[in-house]
């Protein structure tokens, strides 16, 4: 069996509240990153506050939450985090959230690589039926990356966001087990 944590450019590694707290505080200063990450109000956080928050979050039910940090394969640099949240076990549907905080690695295939690793984990280790995500209309780089990883467009919440003085849609994307299995054929 292959190493399920390893992709071509990155690997999944354990979350370390202290290390990630420092990184989250640094990434929070990049307001563009914050706006791409989620729909909350951008604000600044200290390393200590981020660490305390992470420690609490990491205590959560391990059956529901699979949360990894993302590291570069060549030099181990921490690039971001990715989280699989099985919010509906009876339907075996999970929500994925991905953030690459180190902006010099945006648009270079790191996100696509880690999403492929996470989908393999979701379908072959956690045995899920589908994986869902939402992405914002103003993040075409992420949309392309998710399409490349195999996600399909399933819907849009019109005008759900209000940023920079105008309304934007939230896009809903998903991938089914069968679709992912088909993709793997010949690999």
């Amino acid at each position: 069996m292959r190493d399920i944590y390893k992709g071509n450019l990155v690997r999944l590694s354990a979350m370390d509240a202290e290390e990630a707290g420092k990184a989250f505080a640094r990434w929070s200063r990049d307001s563009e990153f914050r706006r791409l990450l989620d729909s909350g109000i951008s604000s600044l956080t200290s390393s200590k506050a981020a660490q305390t928050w992470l420690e609490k979050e990491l205590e959560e039910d391990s059956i529901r939450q699979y949360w990894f940090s993302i590291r570069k394969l060549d030099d181990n640099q921490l690039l971001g985090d990715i989280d699989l949240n099985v919010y509906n076990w009876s339907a075996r549907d999970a929500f994925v959230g991905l953030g690459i905080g180190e902006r010099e690695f945006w648009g270079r295939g790191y996100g696509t690589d880690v999403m492929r690793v996470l989908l393999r984990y979701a379908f072959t280790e956690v045995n899920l039926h589908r994986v869902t995500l939402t992405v914002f209309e103003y993040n075409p780089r992420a949309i392309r990356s998710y399409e490349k990883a195999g996600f399909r467009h399933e819907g849009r919440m019109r005008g759900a966001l209000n940023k920079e003085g105008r309304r934007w849609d939230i896009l809903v994307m998903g991938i089914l087990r069968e679709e992912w299995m088909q993709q793997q054929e010949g690999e």
Partner: protein
Amino acid sequence: MRNLFRGELVRLTAEDPEVSAKIEVHWQRDSEYRRFLDAEPAMVVSEKWLKDWFEKRTEEGFSPSRYVFSARTLAEDKLIGFFSLWVDLVHREAWVGIGIGEREVWGKGYGTDMMKLCLQYAFSELNMHRVSLGLMDYNPRALRSYEKAGFRLEGRTRGDVQRAGRRHDSLWMGILREEWLAMQGGEKV
């Protein structure tokens, strides 16, 4: 849709720590009941200890991997027993523990009725692929009841239990989703 919490003879209710402790303290004095329940040594504990234990379980709150119900008779609303499902979410297998502490209702179909509700919950609400259980060979009444509910005997570990001076086998039973669905006669579940 069917009522998940109501059978022919019993209904399922939420476990109440105080009520459960009060009745469990009586049930546990019945050493035969205790020996049917599992292979641990029969032991008696105080009502306070039991109440703390049930309360702790309640405080842990909802977990997608454990489901516990009390069972009451439909006729008299009498608390007679419980069942628990421990769920392996990744492989979609659930293990059942079931017990009827009120021995005057043993052998009258209450356990079978409870197990049918348990399987209905496991397959049509939790979407399990299989349900498993274990029992001891000195409990033939339970074995017949589980067979009636649809379980098949899948194996035995020979002589792994010592009770009352002799060796007994543990029996392992299971039911698959397809088998359970076939038993529902095409009815919507």
